[in-house]
């Protein structure tokens, strides 16, 4: 089972936030991606700085008029706090990502990093 103390802060936005706000959240937190949440704090997508470039700037779209849900990558993979580090590691390895959102009853708790999942998997998940 994944321990809460092994998670790190997750930067988030709401699905109805406009893209200008999303880009400013990324700037103000110095992160490269954020998790998009619905009204119930459930992760519904992910937006990276590359998405902002490819789906907004390069397409000449207006960031004030676009909403986060219109440019996010949908169906974000998540793991439950009750899952194992092994499972989290395998999902990240398959997706080629460096972190994965961890949820309890579908609600976001934080992020688990790839290296931490790998290390904890090696020592039996404790």
């Amino acid at each position, binding site marked *: 089972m994944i321990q809460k*103390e092994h998670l*790190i802060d997750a*930067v988030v936005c709401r699905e109805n936030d406009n893209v200008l706000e999303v880009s400013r959240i990324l700037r103000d937190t110095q992160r490269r991606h954020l*998790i998009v949440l619905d009204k119930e704090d459930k992760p519904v997508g992910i937006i990276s700085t590359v998405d902002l470039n490819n789906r907004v700037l390069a397409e000449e779209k207006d960031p004030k008029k676009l909403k986060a849900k219109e440019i996010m990558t949908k169906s974000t993979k998540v793991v439950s706090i009750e899952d194992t580090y092994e499972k989290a590691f395998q999902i990240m390895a398959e997706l080629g990502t460096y972190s994965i959102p961890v949820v309890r009853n579908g609600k976001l708790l934080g992020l688990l990093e790839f290296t931490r999942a790998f290390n904890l998997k090696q020592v039996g998940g404790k």
Partner: protein
Amino acid sequence: MGLRDLVHKMPETRKELSDYVIKNNRHVKKLIEKNPDYKSALEEAVSSTFDKYSEYLKGWKNKLSGAGHVVGYTADAWLFATGDIIGTLGGKFINFLAQMPEKAYSLAYAVRTGNYLDAAQNILEGALSYIPGLTFADQGLTRIIQKRMASDALTKFEKEVGIYKSWTAKVADTLKGLYKGVKDRAKNVFTPVYEPKLALQRA
């Protein structure tokens, strides 16, 4: 008290911890000079922090580690003086054995307090210090905990007097003036709240 304390003394008592926080944080000193009531807020923060960590500063493991460091430093000096790598590694091995109980104890400390990074730092520094000439790389668990105490006491004090800044506020401060519409984005951060079970049982 370790050899490093001869150069930079770390706090071992409540009074020393309080003085250390004031000495190393100018803004705390200024606040207390302006308003002496803040001194009691600092004393409270120091006291609760010291109560939490003081038990991990005692014990034979820490003393054995300190003695091991003396052997390690001697081995390093022997290497620099004679170039005898075999003799040095012998001394370093004694140091290595002397560090084992303390490194194992650092895991128990981490589980009870939630400070996993402290334990990881202690173990990594210990591994690095086994390289001839690098005994100084291992500051020991005691010193890591003393630094943690100073940092925790400062955080508690800052929260108490309302000047604590989260990482989001600090990032925003550095960006203000550079870009338009910079804000503290604390509301956009989900922080996993962790209370160590063992620490709660002890309280």
